[in-house]
C-alpha cells in the first residue's frame, strides 16, 4: 500500500513539467558530452569559427549570402517543384484508382506497386541513367521528376484516404441535384477531405525535403551537395554535418508549426 503510493508520487514527480525539462537537458548534455569526448579522443580539431562564412560574409558591398543559404534555396526550389508535380500525380492516380475505368485502376495499381517496392536511390538512377539519355533529361529535371513520381505514389494514398473519409451521403446528395462527377469532387468532396489530408500531407512535405538530399549523389546543387563540397575543401565534416542537419531541422520544424496552425483553422469549420 505504502509502496504503491510512493511509486505514484515518484511517477507524478517524474512526469511533471520541470522534471521533464530537467531530464531532457541531462540527456542532451550527456549526448553532446559523449560526442565531444569522442571527438577529443580521436584528436578532432573543432573549427566552429569557420562556419559563419558559409552563411554570410560582410564585405564592402554589404552582406553577401554564403553557400549554405544558396544550398537551402536549391533544396526548397527542388522540393517545391517536385511537391507541386507530386500533388498533381497523386490526385490523378487517386482519382484513377477510385474511378470506374478498369484500365485506369490497373495503371494506377501498377504504378503504385512499382514505386512502393523500389528504393528511392534506385529510382533516381533509373531516371538519371536510363530515362535521362532516352528522353534528354538533364540532372535537375531527372531529380524533380524522380522525387515527384516517388512522392506522388505516397500522396495518392493520402488523397484516396481523404476522399474515402468523406461520408457517402455527400456523394448521393450532390448526385441528386444533378452535379457531374468533376463538380462533385471539386465543390463537395475535395474541400471536405482537406482536413483529413492535412496531417499526413504535412508529413509528406517534410519527407520530400528530407529525401531531396538524395539527389546529391548526382551532384544537383542543394543543401546536402553543398555540405559535401564544403567538406571536400575543408575537411570539417563534424561541424558541417551538424550545421546542415540543423538547417534541415529548422526548415521542417517551421513547416510542422505552420501545418498545425492550418489544422486548427480547418478543424474550427465544423
Amino acid at each position, binding site marked *: 500500500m505504502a509502496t504503491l503510493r510512493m511509486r505514484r508520487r515518484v511517477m507524478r514527480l517524474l512526469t511533471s513539467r520541470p522534471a521533464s525539462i530537467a531530464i531532457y537537458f541531462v540527456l542532451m548534455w550527456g549526448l553532446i558530452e559523449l560526442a565531444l569526448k569522442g571527438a577529443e579522443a580521436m584528436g578532432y580539431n573543432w573549427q566552429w569559427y569557420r562556419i559563419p562564412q558559409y552563411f554570410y560574409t560582410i564585405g564592402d558591398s554589404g552582406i553577401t549570402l554564403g553557400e549554405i543559404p544558396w544550398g537551402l534555396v536549391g533544396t526548397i526550389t527542388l522540393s517545391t517543384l517536385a511537391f507541386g508535380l507530386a500533388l498533381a500525380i497523386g490526385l490523378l492516380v487517386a482519382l484513377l484508382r477510385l474511378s470506374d475505368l478498369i484500365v485506369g485502376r490497373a495503371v494506377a495499381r501498377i504504378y503504385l506497386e512499382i514505386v512502393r517496392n523500389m528504393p528511392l536511390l534506385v529510382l533516381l538512377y533509373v531516371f538519371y541513367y536510363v530515362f535521362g539519355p532516352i528522353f534528354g533529361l538533364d540532372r535537375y529535371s531527372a531529380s524533380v521528376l524522380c522525387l515527384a513520381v516517388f512522392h506522388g505514389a505516397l500522396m495518392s494514398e493520402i488523397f484516396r484516404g481523404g476522399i474515402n473519409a468523406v461520408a457517402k451521403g*455527400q456523394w448521393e*446528395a450532390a*448526385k*441528386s*441535384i444533378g452535379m457531374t462527377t468533376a463538380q462533385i469532387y471539386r465543390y463537395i468532396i475535395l474541400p471536405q477531405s482537406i482536413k483529413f489530408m492535412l496531417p499526413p500531407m504535412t508529413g509528406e512535405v517534410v519527407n520530400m525535403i528530407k529525401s531531396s538530399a538524395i539527389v546529391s549523389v548526382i551532384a544537383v546543387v542543394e543543401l546536402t551537395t553543398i555540405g559535401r563540397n564544403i567538406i571536400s575543401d575543408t575537411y570539417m565534416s563534424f561541424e558541417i554535418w551538424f550545421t546542415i542537419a540543423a538547417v534541415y531541422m529548422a526548415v521542417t520544424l517551421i513547416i510542422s508549426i505552420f501545418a498545425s496552425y492550418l489544422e486548427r483553422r480547418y478543424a474550427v469549420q465544423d
Partner: protein
Amino acid sequence: MVVGLPLPKESAPLSDSPLIIDMRNVAKFFGPFQALTDINFTVRQGERVVVCGPSGSGKSTMIRCINRLEEHDEGTITVDGIELGEDTKDIRAVRQEVGMVFQQFNLFPHLTVLENLTIGPIRVRKMDKAAAEALGRKYLERVHIPEQADKYPSQLSGGQQQRVAIARSLCMEPRIMLFDEPTSALDPEMISEVLEVMVELAESGMTMVCVTHEMGFARRVADRMVFMEAGRIVEEAPPQAFFTNPKSDRVRLFLDQVLEH
C-alpha cells in the same frame, strides 16, 4: 414550374394527368440478394404517393432507382419522358427534375445554409449568383427558416437541417420530390415541423413519392398508398381503402403495428 402554383385537386383529375414516373418489371440485385422483384410502379404528375412496408422491404431501393442512385438490373424506368440507362447526360437531366430528401439530411457541412441551397442552381443550372441567392432565400422562407441563411448546418437542429435539405432540393425547381424516410432520424419533437413543410409542399401540387412510417401524414396528403414486402409491391390502394379495409393480411398486420401507438 409546378412549385409555387397551387394546383387544386378538383380542377385536375389525377387520372388525366400524364405519367411522370413509369417503372416496368424492374428488378434489382445486390450480389446474390434480390432487392426488388418485378416492380411495376407509376406516378402521375401531381400525384402524392406514400410507400410503406417493413424495413428491408425495398422501399428505399425502389425510390433510389428513380433518380438512379441505384442502378436497376432488369426492366425499364422512364422519368419525365427519359428512359434511365447508361447515358450520364440523361441521368443528370433526370436528377435535375427529381429532388431527393434523405434520412440523414446529407447537407454539405463545409458550406453555409445559403451556399447549400445555391450550389445546385449556380453549378448545375448555371444561374448567376444573385439570382440563385434570391431563389435560395425564397425557399428558405418557404421552409420557415429565413434567419438561418448564414449559419453552417452543424449549428442547426435536426429538424432545421432537414428543412434546409428540402429547400436545397426545391431550389432546383424539380418536377418530382422523393422523400426517403425524412423524419426517421429526427427527435420526436422535430418531426412535426418537417411534416408541416411536406404537407404544404403537397398542397402546392408537387408530385411526391414519400417513403415514411408517418401514417398521419399519409392519411392527410396521400392520393395512393403503396405497401412493399420482400422487394415486391404487395398492395396499392387509395388511403381510405388502404387504412380501413386492406386486402392483404400482411398490410393489416403492419398497420396494427404502426398504428398501435
